[in-house]
């Protein structure tokens, strides 16, 4: 019954993979084939050494004892998954013009909506993995930086945060597009400036009353929950919530928005 959504998600992921692969190919080409030379010594003892960009980066990381924390890579992949989540969020409302096909299947509307959301959730996870494995690791490999990656204890908290954020964003767009089903794509597109603007206004110098409203609204804004959650308890979030509570609230938000979307879908009329 969610076969069309499966096909849609497959197509979207194919396009996404191609988009992700482009910078990877460019980086690998630059990393492996961009060579420079350095001359040491003088006269007959001059030694000309050829080096690649990979060598240069490796040398710098080794010299300065730098590393790339894994949670940072997760965050980049999480951002990509967030974009995919916002696109997928409007798809169920797009089903409006196919109601005679969708609503004449021997399943309840709730089950139908949940099946769709299940396919989309799998698509979001897949987009995260594509962005992480192909995109981020591909670029890191092209630049020879994989071996400088460090796995720290924040890996799991970051994973929970970006996962919860992507699903909450998806749920929000899904619920909003279900409430205003005429323009699901516009809602998905407008969600970015609105939610980013709301998060940005949190720290803006605005009157107290307005600030309080913004803070309250930001509790509903998945983007406001982002920020580093460290395993030692310290964090850098926008909202006054401790790290674990912030993650729990984000996942709760995802469930609530998803439930609202299902209820609105069940009540919809053609």
């Amino acid at each position, binding site marked *: *019954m969610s076969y069309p959504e499966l096909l849609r998600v497959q197509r979207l992921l194919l396009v996404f993979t191609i988009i992700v692969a482009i910078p990877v190919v460019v980086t690998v080409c630059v990393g492996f084939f961009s060579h420079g030379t350095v001359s040491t010594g003088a006269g007959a003892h001059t030694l000309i050494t050829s080096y690649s960009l990979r060598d240069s980066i490796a040398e710098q990381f080794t010299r300065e004892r730098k590393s790339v924390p894994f949670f940072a890579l997760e965050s980049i992949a999480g951002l990509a998954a967030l974009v995919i989540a916002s696109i997928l969020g409007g798809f169920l409302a797009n089903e409006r013009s196919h109601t005679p*096909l969708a609503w004449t*299947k021997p*399943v309840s509307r709730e089950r139908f909506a949940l099946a769709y959301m299940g396919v989309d959730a799998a698509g979001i996870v897949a987009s995260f993995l594509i962005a992480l494995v192909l995109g981020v690791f591909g670029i890191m490999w092209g630049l020879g930086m994989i071996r400088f990656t460090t796995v720290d204890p924040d890996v799991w908290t970051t994973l929970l945060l970006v996962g919860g954020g992507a699903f909450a964003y998806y749920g929000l767009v899904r619920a909003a597009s279900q409430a205003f089903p005429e323009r699901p794509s516009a809602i998905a597109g407008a969600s970015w400036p609105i939610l980013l603007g709301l998060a940005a206004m949190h720290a803006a110098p605005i009157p107290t009353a307005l600030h309080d409203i913004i803070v309250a609204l930001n509790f509903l804004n998945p983007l406001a929950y982002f920020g580093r959650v460290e395993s030692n308890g310290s964090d850098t979030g926008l909202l006054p919530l401790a790290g674990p509570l912030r993650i729990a609230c984000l996942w709760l938000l995802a469930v609530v928005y998803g439930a609202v979307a299902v209820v609105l879908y069940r009540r919809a*009329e053609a």
Partner: protein
Amino acid sequence: MMIAIQHLTKRYGSQAAVSGLDLEIERGSICGLLGPNGSGKTTTFKCLLGFTRPDSGTLLIDGKPLEPATFERLSYVPERSALYDWMTAAQHVELQRRSFRRFDAARARELLEIFRLDPNKKTKRLSKGQQTAVALVLAFSIRPDVLVLDEPASGLDPIFQRVVMDLMIDAAANGATILFSSHQITQVERAADHVAILRQGKVVLDGVVDSLKSDEKIVEAIFDDAVPPVDGLAHDVRVRRLERSGRILRAYVRTDSDAIARQVEDLHPRSVSVLDLNLEDIFLGAVEPDNRVEPFGEIR
């Protein structure tokens, strides 16, 4: 009764799309739903299929209110294509296969061949008639017990219109109950054994086609000049309705059509004939307002 609609009312704002509609269709029957645009046919379908909630009334399919499991044996073909334009006919068939336990793959292949459809062509590249054909393939491929078809031959050429009618007759012969709407009365006349005529959201005429046809006769007279005064006929209780169109007089007669024909002959027309009613006559008689406008000026 396979389909029972009782006192159905659906309003959009202050406008009643359907008002106290009653309709019952027996198992194995083909019911043609006729009515002018805006008479409530599509709204009736939407309520029957649960697409919209009625304000009041009861809708039963095989004695039970609509539930998800009902769709395992109910197919619907909408008037406008609801297909995914980026999917192929084969992918739509695959969607049916995944959705219905009763899906019959051999039947689907057979229907694709009957309608000469390329299964690998995207729906957006198909003509309106071919899109209707894909919808029909999907509907008939689950071998449903109930078929609800809104303008099922829309956009099809006469050859495939005939195919659709034959599919409906074949399905009904195998026990399926069919409710369909059409603006083409000849299609309804060919396929339906039962007809319901809607006007302003109400069923104004409902019955077995053959019985409705035999209920009345038309006495048609053609005059050399204008139709003379027909006061006597106008007040005759045997005459339900009188129409004149230029030099033609038509009397819709309930009984004693031969006696009425003799009465008309006394007016010295060029010719008088007694005709059987066809479905178009029944339809027009049911949906036309009481005072018809010229050139069909109604006398009574």
